[in-house]
């Protein structure tokens, strides 16, 4: 694994973050666990709705590239919502709340949240 310029000598003086490898700070939000699960993520999603929709669209485009007929998306939008009641509480309710706050179809929010297991395919 020594293939300069794709690898390099150990960097130093990179902190505090600056320059071309630093693309920005990360915003802070609060999730109030005393709220009903479906309400907990409303603040975050309200602020990040556009980014989330854009990312989901990129995954849809990818799915359409693999299955041009659109059947993969149909499967996600029709069948994945059936899984929601089987997911452990409170995560299932939090996922429902995210779907309604973002306007993203429930099946696609489910897919996003179980992506780790799906991606191993």
């Amino acid at each position: 694994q020594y293939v300069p310029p794709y690898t390099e000598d150990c960097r130093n003086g990179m902190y505090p973050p600056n320059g071309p490898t630093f693309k920005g700070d990360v915003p802070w939000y609060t999730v109030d666990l005393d709220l009903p699960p479906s309400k907990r993520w409303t603040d975050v999603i309200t602020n990040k709705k556009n980014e989330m929709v854009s990312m989901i669209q990129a995954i849809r485009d990818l799915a359409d590239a693999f299955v041009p007929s659109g059947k993969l998306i149909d499967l996600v939008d029709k069948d994945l919502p059936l899984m929601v009641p089987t997911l452990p509480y409170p995560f299932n309710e939090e996922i429902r709340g995210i779907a309604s706050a973002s306007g993203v179809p429930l099946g696609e929010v489910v897919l996003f949240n179980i992506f780790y297991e799906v991606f191993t395919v």
Partner: protein
Amino acid sequence: CTSLVAEDVNGNLIHARNLDFGLFMGWDMQNRSWVITEKLKSMVVNIDFRRNNHTVFKSTNFAGYVGMLTGIRPHTFTLTMNERFSLDGGYIGILEWILGKRDGMWMSFLTRSVLENATSYEDAKALLSDTKLLAPAYFILGGNRTGQACIITRSRKHSISPLELDVKNGRWYVLETNYDHWKEPLFLDDRRTPAMRCMNQTTQANISIKTVYDVLSTKPVLNKLTTYTTLMEVSKGSLESFIRDCPNPCMPW
């Protein structure tokens, strides 16, 4: 991904990680970047999870994702997870789930439950080691006392050969990328060697949040899949995250 927990000469534990994701999910020829990785960067958020107006735990998340990949229970433990590939993978877990066999846990719901409910390093370690999973994973756990850090390598049903800090015998940090620690990493994707070389070059006497950030900023530990870097110090209860970029020339993974 690259996760590490290091103990400095004063017994302080520093837990840090690069979250790399989006491999093979669309390559943007023009910008020489991964499509999904770039989309995820704009969704990175730090979350303060509170109950009765007190912080229970803090995490770095992708907005819309309710599970946990990176988190700290202040003054108690720190937790990150890295992806593990195995033929006995998540698709089998999902199939079992669909067929009604639901005794396993979705990985990110387990990490969320641990951060929300575990009250000690030992408690967290037991849950992460013994809970049946739908997919294999690496859990990198740091505690709040000297010597408390480990890499838990999980198959769906078992914890395999946990690797612990052993400062007395010279192992003052544990570091995990995406390969079993008892095997050589894939030669095409060896981020472990350069990361360890930089940690060893730094030495325990000089390890700190700053020098750990240097290690995670060194190519190919920093690569085109790196979305964010998180630095955590359990003794201070601090978590800070930064969105990353890898200027060309840079490894695609």
